[in-house]
């Protein structure tokens, strides 16, 4: 029962490099989210998706791109990494419909940009 799996768990990048974080869920959830967590700022929504082939911007979308080509996967891309993108990234998913549906989170991915 994997739930939400994020890869990689840790990554160190140099400024200007690109990378992709992969989120995979096996619960047939419609909704998927990417958050970043920084000290003193809680979790801030980067992008989210309400279904396969759809994406939407959250609170802090600049510098990130996402894709949802398959229902079970939600990719977060950094085209040109900056030190300000050093953070812990969380993916989450939920079923559609009632807003009471709880988000299931992945374990997080720590990204350091030098």
């Amino acid at each position, binding site marked *: 029962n994997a739930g939400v799996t994020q890869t990689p768990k840790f990554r160190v990048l140099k400024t200007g490099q690109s990378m992709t974080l992969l989120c995979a869920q096996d619960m047939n959830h419609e909704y998927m*989210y990417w958050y970043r967590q920084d000290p003193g700022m809680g979790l801030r929504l980067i992008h989210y998706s309400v279904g396969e082939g759809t994406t939407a911007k959250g609170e802090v979308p600049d510098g990130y791109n996402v894709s949802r080509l398959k229902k079970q996967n939600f990719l977060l891309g950094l085209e040109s990494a900056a030190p300000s993108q050093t953070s812990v990234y969380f993916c989450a998913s939920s079923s559609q419909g009632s807003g*009471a549906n709880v988000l299931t*989170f992945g374990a*997080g991915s720590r990204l350091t940009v030098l």
Partner: protein
Amino acid sequence: AQTVTQSQPEMSVQEAETVTLSCTYDTSESDYYLFWYKQPPSRQMILVIRQEAYKQQNATENRFSVNFQKAAKSFSLKISDSQLGDAAMYFCAYRWNDMRFGAGTRLTVKP
């Protein structure tokens, strides 16, 4: 845009005592959902309790209960009989379309 505010960056409680964590939010919607999540040092996000805005009755889950004041847009979490394992970051969250979180409150439990 909806915002969630947690005004207490840190709180401390003695083991077996009661502590209340505060949360306020801003919204123009009438039907929405509120949550408290716990994040221990393992970094895993764990749901503590949730409240539907259309329900007047406050939610409870064992030692955890909320005080939901819809008109005041307030959603506080009360932890009774605090245990060492309750030590963690606690995040208040609001959901209407997407899910927005507050900045968190770090709870320390003293033995």
